[in-house]
C-alpha cells in the first residue's frame, strides 16, 4: 500500500503573478522614481501528496494561496513552476488523450452556489452536458443518467428541467456536486464548498460528502478557512500561511498537539460551542500582503516566540513525529 505512488502529487509547485512595469513606469524610473515589477507569490514551493481514499484538509486565511493551489491541483491553472503527477506520471508529459482523461478524473466543487452554475442552462444541461460531450453516456440514456445523478445528490429528478435560480443555495450546491460526479471522477477538489451555506444546510452537504466518499470511494482535497469543518471531515490537515505550508499532520494529531505557533494561534482563535464567556486572546497583527511578505519565516512579525533567526531564514518543513511535519525554527532547539 505505501509503495504505491500517491494518487495526486504536487511537487515543488510555485505560482507567481507578475505585473510588469510599463513604458510610463520605466520613464518614471529614469526620472528618479524607484518602481519595481510587482510579483505576488501566491504559492511558494509547495509539495503535497494525496493518497487514494484519503481526505486532505487545506486550511488557511484569505490570501494564503489555498484557492490557487486548489485550482492547480484540479488542473484549471498551470503552475509557474513544479510538476503535477497523477498516480506517479507527470500530467504535462502525457499524450493529449490521457491528459484529458486525467482532467476528468479530477473534478472541482466551487464555493459560490450562485456563480458556479450557468444561469442560462437547465439543470439537466448543466449536469448532462459534459458526459454527453465526452461520450460517457449515449444520447438516449442521458435523461436517465442525469436523473440518477440528481437522486444520488438528494435532488428530485422531476425538477431537472428547471433553471438554477429556481433552487435554494443548498440545492444549487447539490447541483454543482452532481455536475462534477457526472464525469465519474475519482478525486474531488472542494474549494470552500460549504462556506456560503447556512449552518443547517452546511451540515446536509457535509453529510453528503461523507456518504459519497463511503459509496464511491472518492478522494478529497478539502479547502476551507473553517477549522471545525476541516477537522470534522479530514484524515490529514495542511495549514497554509502566505503561500507556504507551515504544518501538515494527521487531523487528530494536529488538533491535539499543534506544533507551529500559527496553527496554535488559529486553534486558539476559533470560537467553540463549548467555550462559554471566554476571554478572547488574539494573535497580534495583520495578515501581511502577499505582494510584500516579510523575510524569513512569514509568520515572525506576529509570532509570540520569534527569535532573531526567524527574521532571516525561512524554516523548512521537518518531520517532528511520524507523519507530522512543521516548519518552525523552534523545533531545532529541542
Amino acid at each position, binding site marked *: 500500500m505505501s509503495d504505491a505512488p500517491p494518487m495526486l502529487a504536487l511537487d515543488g509547485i510555485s505560482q507567481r503573478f507578475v505585473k510588469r512595469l510599463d513604458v*510610463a*513606469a520605466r520613464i*518614471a524610473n529614469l526620472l528618479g*522614481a524607484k*518602481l519595481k515589477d510587482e510579483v505576488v507569490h501566491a504559492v511558494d514551493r509547495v509539495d503535497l501528496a494525496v493518497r487514494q481514499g484519503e481526505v486532505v484538509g487545506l486550511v488557511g486565511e484569505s490570501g494564503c494561496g489555498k484557492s490557487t493551489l486548489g485550482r492547480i491541483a484540479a488542473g484549471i491553472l498551470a503552475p509557474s513552476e513544479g510538476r503535477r503527477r497523477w498516480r506517479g506520471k507527470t500530467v504535462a508529459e502525457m499524450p493529449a488523450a490521457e491528459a484529458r482523461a486525467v482532467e476528468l478524473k479530477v473534478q472541482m466543487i466551487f464555493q459560490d452556489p450562485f456563480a458556479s452554475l450557468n444561469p442560462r442552462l437547465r439543470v439537466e444541461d448543466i449536469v448532462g452536458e459534459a458526459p454527453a460531450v465526452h461520450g460517457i453516456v449515449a444520447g438516449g440514456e442521458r435523461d436517465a443518467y442525469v436523473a440518477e445523478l440528481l437522486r444520488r445528490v438528494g435532488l428530485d429528478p422531476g425538477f431537472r428541467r428547471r433553471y438554477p435560480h429556481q433552487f435554494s443555495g443548498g440545492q444549487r450546491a447539490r447541483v454543482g456536486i452532481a455536475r462534477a460526479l457526472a464525469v465519474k471522477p475519482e478525486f474531488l477538489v472542494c474549494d470552500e464548498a460549504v462556506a456560503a451555506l447556512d449552518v443547517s444546510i452546511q451540515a446536509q452537504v457535509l453529510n453528503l460528502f461523507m456518504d459519497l466518499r463511503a459509496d464511491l470511494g472518492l478522494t478529497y482535497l478539502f479547502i476551507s478557512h473553517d477549522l471545525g469543518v476541516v477537522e470534522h471531515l479530514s484524515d490529514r490537515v495542511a495549514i497554509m500561511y502566505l503561500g507556504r505550508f507551515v504544518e501538515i499532520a494527521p487531523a487528530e494529531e494536529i488538533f491535539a498537539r499543534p506544533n507551529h505557533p500559527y496553527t496554535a494561534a488559529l486553534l486558539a482563535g476559533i470560537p467553540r460551542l463549548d467555550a462559554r464567556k471566554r476571554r478572547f486572546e488574539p494573535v497580534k497583527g495583520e495578515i501581511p500582503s502577499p505582494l510584500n511578505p516579510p523575510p524569513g519565516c512569514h509568520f515572525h512579525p506576529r509570532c509570540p516566540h520569534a527569535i532573531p533567526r526567524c527574521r532571516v531564514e525561512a524554516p523548512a518543513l521537518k518531520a517532528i513525529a511520524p507523519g507530522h511535519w512543521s516548519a518552525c525554527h523552534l523545533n531545532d532547539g529541542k
Partner: protein
Amino acid sequence: MLVYLIRRLLQSVAVLLVMSVLVFVGVFAIGDPVEILINPQADQAEIARARAALGLDQPLWRQYALFVVNAATGDLGRSFVHNVPAIDLILQRMPATLELAVTATLFGVLLGVPLGLLAGLRPQSRIGKSIMAGSILGFSLPTFWVGLMLIMVFAVQLGWLPSTGRGETRRVLGIDLSILTLDGLRHIVLPALNLALFKLSLVIRLSRAGTREVVLQDYVKFARAKGLAQRRVVWVHVFKNIMIPIVTVLGLELGSTIAFAVVTETIFAWPGMGKLIIDSINLLDRPVVVAYLMVVVFMFILINLAVDLAYSVLDPRVRLSEVKG
C-alpha cells in the same frame, strides 16, 4: 501620480500621431481640389502647375511628412479657397464656438445635476417620474429639429429673439464675446438652449443613475445610522460619489458639444468653426478640413487629460494607488 501623468502624456502623443495619419489619409480621399479651383478650360500644363503650387504632385508620404513638420511649428497649410493660413481661419472662428459650447455645457450641468439627484433620491415620486419623462424627451429630440422649432416659435411666430448671427460683441483680452452685450445675449439664447437640451438630459440621467446606485450602498446607510442630517448625507456622502462619473462624462461632453455645434451653427448661422468645416467640406478646402480636425483632436486630448486629472483628484482610490506605486 508621476507614472500616471507620464502614461497619459505618452498616450496623448500616440493618439495625436495616429489621428494625424488617419485624418490626413482620410481627407486626401476627398475629391481633387484642383478641379474646383482651376478654370475648367485650363490646359494640362496649367493644371500641373496648380498641383505643384499646392504641393499635390508629391507622393502621399512626403506630403504627410511635410505636414507633420509644418504642424509642429503651427503651420497647418493655407486654405485653397481663402488663400490665408488655415490655422488663422480656425482660430478666428474658435471663440464663437467655445462661447456657445461652454454656455450650453454650464447650463446643462447647473440645472441637470440637482434635477438628477432629486429624481434619483425619489425615483417613485411624481416629481422624480416627471423629471425622468422630461429627460427622455430631451434625450430623444433631434438637435437640428429642435433648432428649427425654436426658430419657428421664438423668431418667426413670436418675433422675440433673433435667429441668425452673433449680434453685437465686445472684445475682452483680444477675444470677441457675445454674452457681454444685451444684443449678443439675445442672439446666444436660442442656439445655446438648443445645444444644451441634449446635455441637460444626459446629465440628469447620469446623476439619477449614479444616485440610485449610491443610495443603496452600505456607507450611505451607515451615514444615516451615525445620525447625520439628511442634508449632509445627500450633499456630502452621495454627491461626492456621483460627481466622479459625472465629471468624467462632462469633460468628454464638452468635447462632443464642440463637435455637435456643427449642427446648431448651421441652423442659427452662428459664425463658428462648425459652420466653417461644413462649408470647407463642400468646397473641398482640404487644408482647412485637416487643420480643423487637428485642432479639434488637440482640444480633445487636452480635455481628456484635464478630465483624468480631475478624476484622480476626486477619487482618492485612483490618486493614492498611483502615488504608492
